[in-house]
């Protein structure tokens, strides 16, 4: 092992670590606000990457039908409630808006020549397609049992993950996909070639993390979410809607997930079922942070990426074992150091 190899591996570890850090943060965010361990987060990653790949091949991503289907169910439920209680004009407007959004997306995706439009537009379309799935999924699968014990929420979360993997196979097929890099240039740093995509990943990750930090520290909505995370009941008494908080965090998680997918798609081949293992590594990071601390989770996730890269070099067949065994000493250390937290508040 010489310096050049160490830098190459370090660069690789840092790239993966940055993605794991983003995922760790969204897992943490969703967990603290809603008590849901967001296992399907990985599916948002693969959906993002595969949708991008489908667009670059000039095909309308079939994910649009999932969006339409879920929006229809969502609107039907809303309508049913309207009819059962009383008809509220504002709510009706919202329903029309949601339906309109879904149809506009489908219209756009089927009429634009997707392969030719600039990559920024492709990214934007992908995000517009996937991000709404987050809040709709919260509304359909978690909102009705928002007060259920954390274990029930976990089980629903696992069910949703399994269902989404199946849907992914149906929509995207079993083939792996990879997309074009954002730009083709590379940078030379001493003897090591840095690919521009790795820089993109690291820069965008840092940008997102900083933006999140500022949003949570400075904006009213961010503070509302933080308040919900600290004390759900207290926040509710202050007029913060738990439904809004849930939907907002899910939208954020879907955004971070699909953005991560778009970022790593040019570097690696992703399959419809690759998401789980990626989000699981983010989860290891979140566990290192004790599912409470954001900075420690981010550092932990980067450490996971680094350890992964180096173990891949020394013992490629034991890579996963090494990464996931990491979690055990941290769990022991955590359980010895922290006081017992109530399961349900």
């Amino acid at each position, binding site marked *: 092992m010489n310096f050049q190899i160490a830098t190459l591996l370090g660069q690789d570890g840092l790239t993966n670590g940055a993605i794991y850090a983003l995922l760790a943060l969204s897992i943490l965010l969703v967990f603290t606000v809603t008590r849901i361990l967001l296992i399907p987060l990985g599916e948002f990653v693969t959906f993002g990457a595969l949708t991008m790949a489908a667009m670059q091949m000039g095909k309308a991503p079939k994910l649009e039908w999932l969006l339409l289907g879920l929006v229809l169910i969502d609107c039907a439920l809303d309508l049913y409630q309207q009819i059962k209680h009383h008809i509220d004009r504002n709510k009706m407007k919202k329903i029309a808006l949601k339906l309109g959004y879904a149809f506009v997306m489908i219209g756009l995706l089927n009429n634009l020549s997707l392969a030719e439009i600039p990559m920024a537009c492709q990214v934007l379309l992908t995000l517009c397609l996937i991000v709404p799935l987050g809040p709709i999924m919260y509304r359909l699968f978690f909102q009705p049992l928002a007060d259920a014990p954390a274990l029930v929420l976990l089980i629903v979360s696992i069910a949703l993950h399994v269902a989404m993997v199946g849907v992914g196979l149906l929509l995207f097929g079993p083939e792996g996909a990879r997309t074009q890099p954002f730009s083709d240039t590379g940078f030379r740093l001493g003897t090591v070639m840095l690919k521009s995509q790795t820089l993109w990943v690291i820069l965008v990750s840092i940008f997102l993390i900083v933006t999140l930090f500022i949003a949570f520290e400075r904006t009213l909505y961010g503070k509302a979410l933080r308040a919900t995370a600290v004390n759900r009941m207290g926040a509710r008494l202050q007029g913060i809607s738990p439904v809004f908080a849930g939907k907002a965090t899910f939208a954020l998680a879907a955004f971070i997930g699909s953005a991560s997918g778009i970022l790593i798609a040019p570097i690696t081949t992703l399959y419809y079922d690759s998401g789980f293992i990626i989000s699981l590594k983010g989860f290891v990071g979140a566990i290192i942070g004790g599912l409470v601390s954001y900075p420690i989770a981010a550092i932990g996730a980067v450490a996971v990426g680094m350890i992964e890269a180096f173990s891949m070099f020394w013992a490629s067949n034991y890579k*996963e074992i090494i990464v996931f065994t990491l979690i055990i000493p941290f769990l022991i250390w955590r359980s010895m150091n922290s006081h017992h937290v109530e399961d349900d508040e």
Partner: protein
Amino acid sequence: MTPKRVISALFLSSSLLAPLANADIKIGVVTSSTGPIALVGIPQKNTVALLPTSAGGEKISYISLDDGSDPTATVKAFKKLIDEEHVDAIIGPSGSGNAMSVIQFAAESGTPMLAPVGTAAVVLPMTEQKKWVFKTTQNDDLIAEALVEQMKSTGIKTIGLIGTADPYGENWAKVMKDLTQKAGIQIVASEQFQRQDTSMTGQSLKILMASPDAVLIAAPGSSSVMPQTTLKDQGYSGKIYQTHGAALDAFLRLGGKAVEGTILAASSMLVLDEVPNSPSKEIATKYITDYKKLYGETPATFGGNVLDAGLLLQNAIPSALKSGKPGSAEFRNALRDALEKTKEMPATQGVYNMTAEDHSGFDERGRVLITVKNGKWVLLK
């Protein structure tokens, strides 16, 4: 008669008719059209619609089941086909591990099983149980021989291996170890990876450090692309060899410029236009055209393996019909014997010559050396 009664009468008569329909020859098909090896299973499941529908004057009906790539589900599907449906033969499953787990059930019930799987372990070494298994893919060593010969003739002395950490990659590592030893080629690095790995930097650096003359990548489907792109990115300039697992159009699409010049050995299905006319070529061309008409895409070779199983059965059924009625143990026994006597039968993957010892039955007509030129598969000359 009231409408209700008409309907119930219809139901009754249709249920009475059902046993008549059962007189057909029944073939079970088990594929993995969902789960991790769906890539292999989907073209196989799609091929069921193209399988021959009659043989020796009898109609053949197919019952297609999915095992979700899970060996336990494969066993369940096999038991269902054997005990409830009383099938005469089974085509499948898609996965090597899945196939290993059901051999005993096929053998116990005396049902011929035609496995379109990669690993040679399902028919070698021949045992009392494996007598019931036939394999419709080229054995790994047949493909490997072609590659090693090519390496030897181009003066390659050292190679590096990257394989998936599954039966496919492991069997290739084993086969290559034996063959390279004989050919005087040295394996200087052997690395493994998982299909879903998002990065291969470590493995490929290890290979680079050993600086072999050539690298062989043994991975099924599109997972064979990433090791190669990573190696190229890091500046590896030697020859890169792939196995027949990479013989997919997706390989070209995903690999782009990085896979230019790759050498692999596979069935001639990829380069049909360039191979001389032969019965195999005709069958494969017809299969590809029919498949395209039905599904709008070219089939992966995995689908051809299932079609071959159907053709083998079609070829064997007429002589088996002389010994017993479909659905009886005598018929299944005779079917197995007839399959074993298959001689010079052309199909999509090559020409089959089964013997009591060789239940795969390919010779060098089952493989050609192929390379990638200008983003297309071409015959290596």
